[in-house]
Protein backbone atom coordinates (compact mmCIF):
# COMPACT_ATOMS: atom_id res chain seq x y z
CA UNK A 1 0.00 0.00 0.00
CA UNK A 2 2.77 2.39 0.95
CA UNK A 3 4.52 1.55 -2.30
CA UNK A 4 1.36 2.26 -4.24
CA UNK A 5 0.78 5.61 -2.57
CA UNK A 6 4.41 6.59 -3.18
CA UNK A 7 3.99 5.69 -6.86
CA UNK A 8 0.83 7.75 -6.97
CA UNK A 9 2.70 10.73 -5.57
CA UNK A 10 5.66 10.61 -7.94
CA UNK A 11 3.74 9.57 -11.04
CA UNK A 12 3.03 13.10 -12.27
CA UNK A 13 6.59 14.39 -11.68
CA UNK A 14 7.95 11.29 -13.40
CA UNK A 15 5.77 11.84 -16.44
CA UNK A 16 6.82 15.45 -16.95
CA UNK A 17 10.48 14.70 -16.19
CA UNK A 18 11.65 14.11 -19.80
CA UNK A 19 10.22 17.42 -21.00
CA UNK A 20 11.47 19.37 -17.99
CA UNK A 21 14.90 17.73 -18.21
CA UNK A 22 15.23 18.78 -21.83
CA UNK A 23 14.37 22.38 -21.03
CA UNK A 24 16.62 22.51 -17.98
CA UNK A 25 19.50 20.92 -19.82
CA UNK A 26 19.25 23.06 -22.94
CA UNK A 27 18.37 26.35 -21.35
CA UNK A 28 20.04 26.32 -17.96
CA UNK A 29 22.94 24.24 -19.28
CA UNK A 30 23.66 26.86 -21.92
CA UNK A 31 23.12 29.61 -19.40
CA UNK A 32 25.54 28.08 -16.91
CA UNK A 33 28.21 27.57 -19.59
CA UNK A 34 27.66 31.11 -20.84
CA UNK A 35 27.78 32.49 -17.32
CA UNK A 36 31.02 30.58 -16.64
CA UNK A 37 32.63 31.91 -19.80
CA UNK A 38 31.47 35.47 -19.09
CA UNK A 39 33.14 35.19 -15.70
CA UNK A 40 36.40 34.07 -17.29
CA UNK A 41 36.08 30.32 -16.83
CA UNK A 42 37.02 29.21 -20.37
CA UNK A 43 39.27 26.10 -20.41
CA UNK A 44 39.60 26.27 -24.23
CA UNK A 45 41.92 29.30 -23.86
CA UNK A 46 43.39 28.13 -20.57
CA UNK A 47 41.45 30.71 -18.59
CA UNK A 48 40.24 29.49 -15.19
CA UNK A 49 40.20 32.58 -12.98
CA UNK A 50 36.80 33.99 -12.03
CA UNK A 51 36.56 37.69 -12.75
CA UNK A 52 34.07 40.47 -13.61
CA UNK A 53 36.68 41.98 -15.95
CA UNK A 54 34.72 41.12 -19.12
CA UNK A 55 31.56 42.70 -17.76
CA UNK A 56 33.62 45.79 -16.98
CA UNK A 57 35.00 45.87 -20.53
CA UNK A 58 31.55 45.50 -22.05
CA UNK A 59 29.98 48.15 -19.83
CA UNK A 60 32.77 50.67 -20.46
CA UNK A 61 32.32 50.44 -24.22
CA UNK A 62 30.06 53.08 -25.74
CA UNK A 63 29.08 50.73 -28.59
CA UNK A 64 27.37 48.50 -26.08
CA UNK A 65 25.06 51.26 -24.89
CA UNK A 66 24.31 52.44 -28.43
CA UNK A 67 23.37 48.88 -29.34
CA UNK A 68 21.36 48.47 -26.17
CA UNK A 69 19.33 51.57 -27.00
CA UNK A 70 18.86 50.42 -30.61
CA UNK A 71 17.70 46.98 -29.40
CA UNK A 72 15.34 48.44 -26.82
CA UNK A 73 13.93 50.99 -29.26
CA UNK A 74 13.27 48.39 -31.96
CA UNK A 75 11.74 45.90 -29.52
CA UNK A 76 9.51 48.43 -27.81
CA UNK A 77 8.34 50.09 -31.03
CA UNK A 78 7.66 46.77 -32.74
CA UNK A 79 5.76 45.45 -29.74
CA UNK A 80 3.67 48.55 -29.14
CA UNK A 81 2.88 49.11 -32.82
CA UNK A 82 2.10 45.42 -33.38
CA UNK A 83 -0.22 45.38 -30.37
CA UNK A 84 -2.08 48.52 -31.43
CA UNK A 85 -2.47 47.35 -35.02
CA UNK A 86 -3.45 43.84 -33.93
CA UNK A 87 -6.19 45.17 -31.63
CA UNK A 88 -7.48 47.53 -34.33
CA UNK A 89 -7.61 44.82 -36.99
CA UNK A 90 -9.16 42.28 -34.59
CA UNK A 91 -11.87 44.83 -33.72
CA UNK A 92 -12.72 45.12 -37.41
CA UNK A 93 -12.51 41.40 -38.17
CA UNK A 94 -14.78 40.35 -35.33
CA UNK A 95 -17.70 41.93 -37.17
CA UNK A 96 -19.43 39.84 -39.75
CA UNK A 97 -19.30 41.54 -43.13
CA UNK A 98 -19.09 40.47 -46.73
CA UNK A 99 -15.80 38.62 -47.13
CA UNK A 100 -14.92 38.76 -43.42
CA UNK A 101 -13.88 35.10 -43.34
CA UNK A 102 -11.61 35.61 -46.32
CA UNK A 103 -10.00 38.66 -44.71
CA UNK A 104 -9.51 36.74 -41.46
CA UNK A 105 -7.78 33.97 -43.42
CA UNK A 106 -5.63 36.54 -45.20
CA UNK A 107 -4.77 38.17 -41.89
CA UNK A 108 -3.40 34.92 -40.48
CA UNK A 109 -1.49 33.97 -43.60
CA UNK A 110 1.87 35.36 -42.50
CA UNK A 111 2.03 33.37 -39.26
CA UNK A 112 3.64 30.17 -40.62
CA UNK A 113 6.04 32.07 -42.90
CA UNK A 114 9.61 32.20 -41.48
CA UNK A 115 11.02 35.57 -40.44
CA UNK A 116 13.83 35.24 -42.98
CA UNK A 117 11.38 34.85 -45.84
CA UNK A 118 9.44 37.83 -44.50
CA UNK A 119 12.67 39.86 -44.44
CA UNK A 120 13.42 38.95 -48.04
CA UNK A 121 9.89 39.94 -49.02
CA UNK A 122 10.16 43.29 -47.28
CA UNK A 123 13.48 44.02 -49.05
CA UNK A 124 11.88 43.20 -52.39
CA UNK A 125 9.04 45.52 -51.55
CA UNK A 126 10.55 48.61 -49.92
CA UNK A 127 14.23 48.81 -50.96
CA UNK A 128 15.28 51.52 -53.43
CA UNK A 129 15.28 48.89 -56.18
CA UNK A 130 12.11 47.30 -54.80
CA UNK A 131 8.65 46.96 -56.22
CA UNK A 132 7.20 50.09 -54.60
CA UNK A 133 10.15 52.27 -55.66
CA UNK A 134 9.92 51.03 -59.23
CA UNK A 135 6.16 51.45 -59.30
CA UNK A 136 6.54 55.00 -57.95
CA UNK A 137 9.16 55.70 -60.62
CA UNK A 138 6.97 54.20 -63.36
CA UNK A 139 4.05 56.31 -62.17
CA UNK A 140 6.22 59.41 -62.34
CA UNK A 141 5.99 60.07 -58.61
CA UNK A 142 9.80 60.09 -58.26
CA UNK A 143 12.48 61.05 -60.81
CA UNK A 144 14.67 58.02 -60.18
CA UNK A 145 14.38 54.91 -58.02
CA UNK A 146 17.17 56.27 -55.78
CA UNK A 147 14.85 59.16 -54.81
CA UNK A 148 12.74 56.63 -52.95
CA UNK A 149 13.33 57.02 -49.19
CA UNK A 150 15.92 54.67 -47.70
CA UNK A 151 14.05 52.05 -45.70
CA UNK A 152 16.53 49.19 -45.71
CA UNK A 153 19.88 49.50 -43.85
CA UNK A 154 18.74 52.81 -42.37
CA UNK A 155 19.46 53.93 -38.81
CA UNK A 156 15.76 53.95 -37.90
CA UNK A 157 15.50 50.28 -38.89
CA UNK A 158 12.35 50.80 -40.99
CA UNK A 159 12.58 47.49 -42.86
CA UNK A 160 13.28 45.66 -39.58
CA UNK A 161 10.18 47.20 -38.04
CA UNK A 162 8.07 46.39 -41.09
CA UNK A 163 9.22 42.77 -41.02
CA UNK A 164 8.33 42.44 -37.36
CA UNK A 165 4.98 44.12 -37.89
CA UNK A 166 4.14 41.83 -40.78
CA UNK A 167 4.96 38.80 -38.68
CA UNK A 168 3.79 39.80 -35.21
CA UNK A 169 0.55 41.70 -35.87
CA UNK A 170 -1.34 38.52 -36.89
CA UNK A 171 0.25 36.63 -34.00
CA UNK A 172 -1.18 39.04 -31.42
CA UNK A 173 -4.27 39.64 -33.55
CA UNK A 174 -5.57 36.06 -33.69
CA UNK A 175 -5.38 35.81 -29.90
CA UNK A 176 -7.23 39.12 -29.48
CA UNK A 177 -9.77 38.08 -32.12
CA UNK A 178 -10.45 34.79 -30.32
CA UNK A 179 -10.96 36.63 -27.03
CA UNK A 180 -13.25 39.21 -28.65
CA UNK A 181 -15.36 36.51 -30.25
CA UNK A 182 -15.64 34.77 -26.89
CA UNK A 183 -16.73 37.96 -25.12
CA UNK A 184 -19.67 38.60 -27.46
CA UNK A 185 -21.43 41.94 -27.87
CA UNK A 186 -23.42 42.08 -24.61
CA UNK A 187 -20.92 43.81 -22.33
CA UNK A 188 -20.65 46.62 -24.84
CA UNK A 189 -24.42 46.76 -25.23
CA UNK A 190 -24.85 47.13 -21.48
CA UNK A 191 -22.18 49.85 -21.43
CA UNK A 192 -23.91 51.55 -24.31
CA UNK A 193 -27.29 51.71 -22.62
CA UNK A 194 -25.46 53.07 -19.56
CA UNK A 195 -24.25 55.97 -21.67
CA UNK A 196 -20.75 54.89 -22.75
CA UNK A 197 -19.64 56.21 -26.15
CA UNK A 198 -17.53 54.14 -28.57
CA UNK A 199 -14.20 55.18 -27.07
CA UNK A 200 -15.40 54.62 -23.48
CA UNK A 201 -16.73 51.19 -24.39
CA UNK A 202 -13.35 50.27 -25.83
CA UNK A 203 -11.30 51.83 -23.05
CA UNK A 204 -13.28 50.71 -20.00
CA UNK A 205 -15.01 47.52 -21.16
CA UNK A 206 -13.16 45.82 -24.01
CA UNK A 207 -9.56 46.75 -23.30
CA UNK A 208 -9.49 45.35 -19.74
CA UNK A 209 -11.06 42.15 -21.07
CA UNK A 210 -8.58 41.64 -23.91
CA UNK A 211 -5.54 42.95 -22.03
CA UNK A 212 -4.47 39.61 -20.53
CA UNK A 213 -4.31 38.18 -24.05
CA UNK A 214 -2.55 41.24 -25.44
CA UNK A 215 -0.06 41.19 -22.57
CA UNK A 216 0.89 37.57 -22.85
CA UNK A 217 1.34 37.69 -26.62
CA UNK A 218 3.08 41.05 -26.69
CA UNK A 219 5.53 39.87 -24.03
CA UNK A 220 6.44 36.97 -26.29
CA UNK A 221 6.87 39.42 -29.18
CA UNK A 222 8.99 41.77 -27.08
CA UNK A 223 11.20 38.95 -25.82
CA UNK A 224 11.60 37.59 -29.33
CA UNK A 225 12.44 40.92 -30.95
CA UNK A 226 14.75 41.92 -28.12
CA UNK A 227 16.81 38.75 -28.47
CA UNK A 228 16.60 38.00 -32.19
CA UNK A 229 19.57 38.74 -34.38
CA UNK A 230 18.81 37.52 -37.90
CA UNK A 231 16.52 40.35 -39.02
CA UNK A 232 18.74 43.23 -37.74
CA UNK A 233 21.73 41.40 -39.20
CA UNK A 234 20.08 41.17 -42.63
CA UNK A 235 18.25 44.49 -42.78
CA UNK A 236 19.94 46.77 -40.26
CA UNK A 237 22.90 49.15 -40.36
CA UNK A 238 26.27 47.93 -39.05
CA UNK A 239 26.44 50.70 -36.52
CA UNK A 240 24.60 50.96 -34.24
CA UNK A 241 23.48 47.37 -34.53
CA UNK A 242 21.44 45.49 -31.95
CA UNK A 243 22.90 43.72 -28.92
CA UNK A 244 22.23 40.18 -30.16
CA UNK A 245 24.06 41.02 -33.40
CA UNK A 246 26.94 42.57 -31.45
CA UNK A 247 27.17 39.53 -29.20
CA UNK A 248 26.94 37.17 -32.16
CA UNK A 249 29.71 39.01 -34.02
CA UNK A 250 32.01 38.81 -30.98
CA UNK A 251 31.07 35.16 -30.53
CA UNK A 252 31.92 34.35 -34.15
CA UNK A 253 35.24 36.20 -34.10
CA UNK A 254 38.19 33.87 -34.78
CA UNK A 255 39.89 35.48 -31.78
CA UNK A 256 38.60 33.24 -28.98
CA UNK A 257 39.62 35.74 -26.35
CA UNK A 258 36.59 37.80 -27.39
CA UNK A 259 34.25 34.93 -26.42
CA UNK A 260 33.96 35.87 -22.70
CA UNK A 261 32.93 39.39 -23.75
CA UNK A 262 30.27 37.95 -26.07
CA UNK A 263 29.00 35.84 -23.21
CA UNK A 264 29.00 38.79 -20.80
CA UNK A 265 26.92 40.69 -23.36
CA UNK A 266 24.49 37.80 -23.67
CA UNK A 267 24.10 37.49 -19.93
CA UNK A 268 23.51 41.25 -19.59
CA UNK A 269 21.03 41.03 -22.49
CA UNK A 270 19.16 38.24 -20.70
CA UNK A 271 19.06 40.14 -17.41
CA UNK A 272 17.83 43.32 -19.08
CA UNK A 273 15.19 41.38 -20.98
CA UNK A 274 13.88 39.82 -17.77
CA UNK A 275 13.78 43.18 -15.97
CA UNK A 276 12.06 44.87 -18.93
CA UNK A 277 9.49 42.11 -19.26
CA UNK A 278 8.54 42.33 -15.60
CA UNK A 279 8.38 46.13 -15.81
CA UNK A 280 6.34 46.01 -19.02
CA UNK A 281 3.83 43.59 -17.55
CA UNK A 282 3.40 45.65 -14.38
CA UNK A 283 3.14 48.91 -16.28
CA UNK A 284 0.56 47.60 -18.75
CA UNK A 285 -1.57 46.10 -15.93
CA UNK A 286 -1.39 49.37 -14.03
CA UNK A 287 -2.32 51.38 -17.11
CA UNK A 288 -5.39 49.24 -17.79
CA UNK A 289 -6.66 49.13 -14.23
CA UNK A 290 -6.58 52.87 -13.64
Amino acid at each position, binding site marked *: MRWLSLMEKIRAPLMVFPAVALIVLLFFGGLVVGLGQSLGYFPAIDSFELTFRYYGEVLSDNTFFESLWQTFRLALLSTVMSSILAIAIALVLRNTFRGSRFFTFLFQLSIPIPHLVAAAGIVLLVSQSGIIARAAYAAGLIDAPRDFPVMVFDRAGTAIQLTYLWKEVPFIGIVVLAILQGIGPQYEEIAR*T*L*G*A*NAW*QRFRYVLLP*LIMPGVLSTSIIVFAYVFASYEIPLLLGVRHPTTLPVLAFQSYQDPDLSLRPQAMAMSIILTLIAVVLLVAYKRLARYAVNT
Partner: protein
Amino acid sequence: MTHVVLRDLTRRFGGVTAVDRLSLEINSGELVAFLGPSGCGKTTTLRMITGLLLPTSGDVLFDNKSMITVPTEKRGAVMVFQKHLLFPTMTVGQNVGFGLRMQGVEKREMQRRVDEMLELVKLPGFANRRAHELSGGQQQRVALARALVVRPKVLLLDEPLANLDANLRLEMRELIRNIQREMSITTVFVTHDQEEAVMLADRIALMFDGLLQQYAQPQDFYQRPTSARVAHFFRNDNLLAGIRRGAQVETALGTLEVDADRTQQPDGKVLVTVRPEDVRLMPNPDEGNCVEAKVLLQVYMGTHTQVQLDLAGHTWMVHSPAHFQAQVGQTITVQLPRSNIWLLPESAS
Protein backbone atom coordinates in the same frame (compact mmCIF):
# COMPACT_ATOMS: atom_id res chain seq x y z
CA MET B 1 -40.83 59.75 -15.47
CA THR B 2 -41.03 59.26 -19.19
CA HIS B 3 -44.04 58.64 -21.39
CA VAL B 4 -43.18 56.07 -24.05
CA VAL B 5 -44.99 55.55 -27.34
CA LEU B 6 -44.28 52.78 -29.82
CA ARG B 7 -45.81 53.64 -33.16
CA ASP B 8 -46.21 50.99 -35.88
CA LEU B 9 -42.90 49.49 -34.82
CA THR B 10 -41.78 46.84 -37.30
CA ARG B 11 -38.60 44.84 -37.54
CA ARG B 12 -37.77 42.35 -40.25
CA PHE B 13 -34.79 40.00 -40.37
CA GLY B 14 -34.48 38.95 -44.01
CA GLY B 15 -37.87 37.49 -44.87
CA VAL B 16 -38.94 37.05 -41.25
CA THR B 17 -41.01 39.72 -39.53
CA ALA B 18 -39.98 39.62 -35.86
CA VAL B 19 -42.18 42.53 -34.79
CA ASP B 20 -45.15 43.60 -36.86
CA ARG B 21 -46.67 47.11 -36.63
CA LEU B 22 -46.57 47.24 -32.85
CA SER B 23 -48.29 50.29 -31.40
CA LEU B 24 -48.76 50.99 -27.72
CA GLU B 25 -48.33 53.67 -25.07
CA ILE B 26 -46.61 53.32 -21.73
CA ASN B 27 -47.55 55.93 -19.15
CA SER B 28 -44.97 57.71 -17.01
CA GLY B 29 -43.91 55.55 -14.11
CA GLU B 30 -45.87 52.56 -15.37
CA LEU B 31 -44.53 49.00 -15.26
CA VAL B 32 -45.44 47.13 -18.42
CA ALA B 33 -44.68 43.46 -19.05
CA PHE B 34 -44.05 42.21 -22.57
CA LEU B 35 -45.30 38.66 -22.36
CA GLY B 36 -45.23 35.86 -24.87
CA PRO B 37 -43.57 32.60 -25.83
CA SER B 38 -39.93 32.46 -27.00
CA GLY B 39 -39.42 34.11 -30.38
CA CYS B 40 -42.57 36.25 -30.22
CA GLY B 41 -40.59 39.48 -30.67
CA LYS B 42 -40.58 40.85 -27.13
CA THR B 43 -36.78 41.11 -26.75
CA THR B 44 -36.54 42.54 -30.28
CA THR B 45 -39.01 45.24 -29.20
CA LEU B 46 -36.95 45.95 -26.09
CA ARG B 47 -33.80 46.32 -28.19
CA MET B 48 -35.59 48.73 -30.49
CA ILE B 49 -36.61 50.86 -27.48
CA THR B 50 -32.95 51.03 -26.38
CA GLY B 51 -31.75 51.74 -29.89
CA LEU B 52 -29.48 48.69 -29.95
CA LEU B 53 -31.60 47.60 -32.89
CA LEU B 54 -33.09 49.94 -35.45
CA PRO B 55 -36.67 49.31 -36.55
CA THR B 56 -37.37 48.54 -40.20
CA SER B 57 -40.19 51.07 -39.90
CA GLY B 58 -42.16 52.84 -37.23
CA ASP B 59 -41.10 55.08 -34.39
CA VAL B 60 -40.17 55.09 -30.70
CA LEU B 61 -41.12 58.26 -28.81
CA PHE B 62 -40.01 59.35 -25.33
CA ASP B 63 -42.17 62.22 -24.08
CA ASN B 64 -43.43 62.79 -27.63
CA LYS B 65 -39.90 63.11 -29.01
CA SER B 66 -38.80 60.64 -31.67
CA MET B 67 -35.80 58.56 -30.59
CA ILE B 68 -35.04 57.01 -33.97
CA THR B 69 -32.05 59.25 -34.66
CA VAL B 70 -30.90 59.35 -31.01
CA PRO B 71 -28.06 56.85 -30.39
CA THR B 72 -28.44 54.29 -27.61
CA GLU B 73 -25.91 55.98 -25.33
CA LYS B 74 -27.95 59.17 -25.36
CA ARG B 75 -31.44 57.71 -24.99
CA GLY B 76 -31.36 57.08 -21.27
CA ALA B 77 -33.05 53.71 -21.77
CA VAL B 78 -31.04 51.31 -19.63
CA MET B 79 -31.28 47.57 -20.11
CA VAL B 80 -30.74 44.78 -17.56
CA PHE B 81 -30.02 41.56 -19.39
CA GLN B 82 -31.09 38.01 -18.71
CA LYS B 83 -27.57 37.03 -17.76
CA HIS B 84 -26.37 39.37 -15.08
CA LEU B 85 -23.25 40.29 -17.03
CA LEU B 86 -21.40 42.36 -14.51
CA PHE B 87 -18.14 43.66 -15.94
CA PRO B 88 -15.75 40.94 -14.70
CA THR B 89 -12.72 43.24 -14.51
CA MET B 90 -14.43 45.63 -12.08
CA THR B 91 -15.47 45.51 -8.44
CA VAL B 92 -19.12 45.68 -7.45
CA GLY B 93 -18.72 49.39 -6.68
CA GLN B 94 -17.07 50.08 -10.04
CA ASN B 95 -19.82 48.14 -11.79
CA VAL B 96 -22.57 50.13 -10.10
CA GLY B 97 -20.73 53.41 -10.68
CA PHE B 98 -20.00 52.66 -14.34
CA GLY B 99 -22.76 54.82 -15.83
CA LEU B 100 -21.88 57.72 -13.53
CA ARG B 101 -18.22 57.44 -14.49
CA MET B 102 -19.21 57.65 -18.16
CA GLN B 103 -21.14 60.82 -17.38
CA GLY B 104 -18.09 62.29 -15.67
CA VAL B 105 -19.76 62.52 -12.25
CA GLU B 106 -17.37 63.73 -9.56
CA LYS B 107 -15.76 60.92 -7.56
CA ARG B 108 -17.21 61.71 -4.13
CA GLU B 109 -20.72 62.16 -5.52
CA MET B 110 -20.31 58.90 -7.43
CA GLN B 111 -19.27 57.09 -4.27
CA ARG B 112 -22.28 58.46 -2.41
CA ARG B 113 -24.74 57.40 -5.07
CA VAL B 114 -23.16 53.95 -5.47
CA ASP B 115 -23.44 53.35 -1.71
CA GLU B 116 -27.03 54.58 -1.76
CA MET B 117 -27.91 52.18 -4.57
CA LEU B 118 -26.20 49.21 -2.93
CA GLU B 119 -28.22 50.00 0.17
CA LEU B 120 -31.40 50.07 -1.92
CA VAL B 121 -30.75 46.62 -3.41
CA LYS B 122 -29.83 45.34 0.05
CA LEU B 123 -26.12 44.86 -0.62
CA PRO B 124 -24.49 47.45 1.62
CA GLY B 125 -20.74 47.01 2.10
CA PHE B 126 -20.35 44.94 -1.08
CA ALA B 127 -18.60 47.70 -3.07
CA ASN B 128 -15.14 46.17 -2.95
CA ARG B 129 -16.14 42.62 -3.84
CA ARG B 130 -15.52 41.14 -7.24
CA ALA B 131 -18.44 39.99 -9.40
CA HIS B 132 -17.42 36.31 -9.24
CA GLU B 133 -17.55 36.40 -5.44
CA LEU B 134 -21.32 37.01 -5.51
CA SER B 135 -24.20 34.56 -5.87
CA GLY B 136 -26.50 34.71 -8.91
CA GLY B 137 -29.16 36.66 -7.03
CA GLN B 138 -26.63 39.14 -5.68
CA GLN B 139 -25.16 39.66 -9.15
CA GLN B 140 -28.62 40.36 -10.52
CA ARG B 141 -29.23 42.93 -7.77
CA VAL B 142 -25.92 44.62 -8.60
CA ALA B 143 -26.95 44.70 -12.27
CA LEU B 144 -30.21 46.35 -11.20
CA ALA B 145 -28.35 48.88 -9.03
CA ARG B 146 -26.01 49.63 -11.94
CA ALA B 147 -29.02 50.42 -14.13
CA LEU B 148 -30.88 52.45 -11.51
CA VAL B 149 -27.96 54.60 -10.40
CA VAL B 150 -28.03 56.63 -13.63
CA ARG B 151 -31.71 57.44 -13.00
CA PRO B 152 -32.80 56.10 -16.39
CA LYS B 153 -35.68 57.57 -18.34
CA VAL B 154 -36.83 54.05 -19.10
CA LEU B 155 -35.72 50.86 -17.38
CA LEU B 156 -35.79 47.75 -19.55
CA LEU B 157 -35.55 44.33 -17.96
CA ASP B 158 -34.96 41.37 -20.28
CA GLU B 159 -36.10 38.28 -18.36
CA PRO B 160 -33.95 39.30 -15.40
CA LEU B 161 -35.30 36.56 -13.17
CA ALA B 162 -35.00 33.68 -15.61
CA ASN B 163 -31.69 32.42 -14.21
CA LEU B 164 -32.73 32.54 -10.55
CA ASP B 165 -34.21 29.76 -8.42
CA ALA B 166 -37.82 29.96 -7.24
CA ASN B 167 -37.21 31.60 -3.84
CA LEU B 168 -34.81 34.18 -5.18
CA ARG B 169 -37.22 34.96 -7.97
CA LEU B 170 -39.97 35.81 -5.51
CA GLU B 171 -37.59 38.00 -3.53
CA MET B 172 -36.39 39.79 -6.67
CA ARG B 173 -39.94 40.33 -7.93
CA GLU B 174 -40.78 42.09 -4.73
CA LEU B 175 -37.58 44.12 -4.81
CA ILE B 176 -38.13 45.22 -8.41
CA ARG B 177 -41.74 46.16 -7.72
CA ASN B 178 -40.87 48.16 -4.60
CA ILE B 179 -37.96 50.01 -6.17
CA GLN B 180 -39.93 50.72 -9.34
CA ARG B 181 -42.78 52.21 -7.31
CA GLU B 182 -40.43 54.14 -5.06
CA MET B 183 -38.46 55.66 -7.93
CA SER B 184 -41.42 55.92 -10.35
CA ILE B 185 -39.34 54.79 -13.29
CA THR B 186 -41.14 53.87 -16.49
CA THR B 187 -40.26 50.19 -16.76
CA VAL B 188 -40.64 47.54 -19.41
CA PHE B 189 -40.21 43.96 -18.35
CA VAL B 190 -39.85 41.01 -20.72
CA THR B 191 -40.98 37.60 -19.57
CA HIS B 192 -42.47 34.37 -20.87
CA ASP B 193 -43.89 33.59 -17.44
CA GLN B 194 -47.52 34.79 -17.22
CA GLU B 195 -47.56 34.50 -13.44
CA GLU B 196 -44.57 36.84 -13.20
CA ALA B 197 -46.23 39.31 -15.56
CA VAL B 198 -49.47 39.27 -13.58
CA MET B 199 -47.72 39.78 -10.26
CA LEU B 200 -45.46 42.60 -11.41
CA ALA B 201 -47.09 44.56 -14.17
CA ASP B 202 -49.54 47.42 -14.22
CA ARG B 203 -50.32 46.39 -17.77
CA ILE B 204 -49.36 43.42 -19.91
CA ALA B 205 -48.63 43.43 -23.64
CA LEU B 206 -49.15 39.88 -24.87
CA MET B 207 -47.40 39.07 -28.13
CA PHE B 208 -47.57 36.10 -30.48
CA ASP B 209 -45.50 35.81 -33.68
CA GLY B 210 -44.47 39.46 -33.59
CA LEU B 211 -48.05 40.70 -33.27
CA LEU B 212 -49.54 42.41 -30.25
CA GLN B 213 -52.54 40.32 -29.17
CA GLN B 214 -53.81 42.22 -26.18
CA TYR B 215 -52.58 45.17 -24.15
CA ALA B 216 -54.48 45.47 -20.91
CA GLN B 217 -54.42 45.16 -17.14
CA PRO B 218 -53.58 41.69 -15.79
CA GLN B 219 -57.13 40.85 -14.70
CA ASP B 220 -58.45 41.49 -18.22
CA PHE B 221 -56.41 38.58 -19.54
CA TYR B 222 -58.41 36.35 -17.20
CA GLN B 223 -61.80 38.00 -17.46
CA ARG B 224 -61.76 39.51 -20.95
CA PRO B 225 -59.32 37.71 -23.26
CA THR B 226 -59.52 38.89 -26.87
CA SER B 227 -59.09 35.47 -28.46
CA ALA B 228 -59.06 31.77 -27.71
CA ARG B 229 -55.26 31.87 -28.07
CA VAL B 230 -54.95 34.57 -25.41
CA ALA B 231 -57.30 32.61 -23.15
CA HIS B 232 -55.19 29.49 -23.73
CA PHE B 233 -51.99 31.34 -22.75
CA PHE B 234 -53.69 32.21 -19.48
CA ARG B 235 -54.62 28.57 -18.96
CA ASN B 236 -58.20 28.65 -20.06
CA ASP B 237 -59.09 26.11 -22.75
CA ASN B 238 -62.79 25.94 -21.89
CA LEU B 239 -64.48 26.65 -25.24
CA LEU B 240 -67.93 25.93 -26.54
CA ALA B 241 -69.11 26.90 -30.05
CA GLY B 242 -72.36 28.84 -30.30
CA ILE B 243 -74.38 31.44 -32.14
CA ARG B 244 -75.09 34.70 -30.38
CA ARG B 245 -78.45 36.43 -30.69
CA GLY B 246 -78.60 39.39 -28.34
CA ALA B 247 -78.41 38.23 -24.74
CA GLN B 248 -78.60 34.56 -25.71
CA VAL B 249 -76.18 32.08 -27.22
CA GLU B 250 -77.43 28.89 -28.80
CA THR B 251 -75.09 25.97 -28.20
CA ALA B 252 -75.21 22.21 -28.60
CA LEU B 253 -76.09 22.10 -24.90
CA GLY B 254 -79.02 24.46 -25.22
CA THR B 255 -79.50 28.21 -24.97
CA LEU B 256 -77.25 30.11 -22.58
CA GLU B 257 -78.05 33.51 -21.17
CA VAL B 258 -75.23 36.03 -21.43
CA ASP B 259 -74.64 39.44 -19.94
CA ALA B 260 -75.13 41.63 -22.99
CA ASP B 261 -73.26 44.58 -21.51
CA ARG B 262 -70.20 42.55 -20.58
CA THR B 263 -69.36 41.04 -23.91
CA GLN B 264 -68.62 42.92 -27.09
CA GLN B 265 -68.86 40.16 -29.67
CA PRO B 266 -71.47 40.91 -32.35
CA ASP B 267 -74.33 38.53 -33.08
CA GLY B 268 -73.32 35.44 -35.03
CA LYS B 269 -70.83 32.64 -34.51
CA VAL B 270 -68.96 32.90 -31.21
CA LEU B 271 -67.05 30.79 -28.72
CA VAL B 272 -68.39 30.64 -25.18
CA THR B 273 -65.82 30.46 -22.41
CA VAL B 274 -65.90 30.38 -18.62
CA ARG B 275 -62.69 30.22 -16.59
CA PRO B 276 -62.01 26.90 -14.78
CA GLU B 277 -62.42 28.57 -11.39
CA ASP B 278 -65.77 30.15 -12.37
CA VAL B 279 -67.68 27.04 -13.50
CA ARG B 280 -70.01 25.89 -10.73
CA LEU B 281 -70.17 22.19 -9.98
CA MET B 282 -72.86 22.76 -7.38
CA PRO B 283 -75.39 24.73 -9.38
CA ASN B 284 -78.07 27.04 -8.11
CA PRO B 285 -81.04 26.11 -10.38
CA ASP B 286 -82.63 29.54 -9.94
CA GLU B 287 -79.86 31.22 -11.87
CA GLY B 288 -80.16 29.17 -15.06
CA ASN B 289 -77.41 28.23 -17.57
CA CYS B 290 -77.24 24.69 -16.18
CA VAL B 291 -75.87 22.09 -18.60
CA GLU B 292 -75.12 18.40 -18.53
CA ALA B 293 -71.49 17.28 -18.47
CA LYS B 294 -69.69 13.96 -18.19
CA VAL B 295 -66.82 13.60 -15.70
CA LEU B 296 -63.69 12.43 -17.55
CA LEU B 297 -61.07 12.76 -14.82
CA GLN B 298 -60.58 14.26 -11.40
CA VAL B 299 -57.30 15.05 -9.72
CA TYR B 300 -56.97 16.12 -6.11
CA MET B 301 -54.60 19.13 -6.03
CA GLY B 302 -54.56 19.88 -2.30
CA THR B 303 -56.16 23.30 -2.35
CA HIS B 304 -58.77 22.25 -4.95
CA THR B 305 -59.83 19.36 -7.13
CA GLN B 306 -59.27 19.61 -10.84
CA VAL B 307 -62.15 18.06 -12.75
CA GLN B 308 -62.05 17.35 -16.47
CA LEU B 309 -65.47 17.39 -18.11
CA ASP B 310 -66.94 16.61 -21.50
CA LEU B 311 -69.36 19.35 -22.60
CA ALA B 312 -70.96 18.33 -25.88
CA GLY B 313 -67.66 17.04 -27.22
CA HIS B 314 -65.56 19.92 -25.83
CA THR B 315 -63.15 19.14 -22.97
CA TRP B 316 -63.45 21.62 -20.11
CA MET B 317 -61.31 21.98 -17.03
CA VAL B 318 -62.97 23.01 -13.79
CA HIS B 319 -61.47 23.87 -10.43
CA SER B 320 -63.84 22.60 -7.77
CA PRO B 321 -63.57 22.76 -3.99
CA ALA B 322 -61.09 20.19 -2.68
CA HIS B 323 -63.84 18.04 -1.14
CA PHE B 324 -65.77 17.63 -4.43
CA GLN B 325 -66.35 13.99 -5.29
CA ALA B 326 -67.87 12.40 -8.39
CA GLN B 327 -67.43 9.14 -10.28
CA VAL B 328 -65.52 9.16 -13.53
CA GLY B 329 -68.06 8.60 -16.29
CA GLN B 330 -70.88 10.06 -14.19
CA THR B 331 -73.07 12.73 -15.80
CA ILE B 332 -73.44 15.80 -13.62
CA THR B 333 -75.08 19.19 -13.94
CA VAL B 334 -72.80 22.17 -14.03
CA GLN B 335 -73.63 25.85 -14.13
CA LEU B 336 -72.02 28.45 -16.41
CA PRO B 337 -72.86 31.61 -14.43
CA ARG B 338 -74.21 34.35 -16.67
CA SER B 339 -71.93 36.97 -15.15
CA ASN B 340 -68.84 34.82 -15.83
CA ILE B 341 -69.56 33.94 -19.44
CA TRP B 342 -67.20 35.62 -21.90
CA LEU B 343 -67.58 35.44 -25.65
CA LEU B 344 -64.67 35.09 -28.03
CA PRO B 345 -64.56 35.56 -31.78
CA GLU B 346 -65.15 32.28 -33.54
CA SER B 347 -62.39 32.86 -36.13
CA ALA B 348 -59.66 32.83 -33.52
CA SER B 349 -60.40 29.33 -32.34
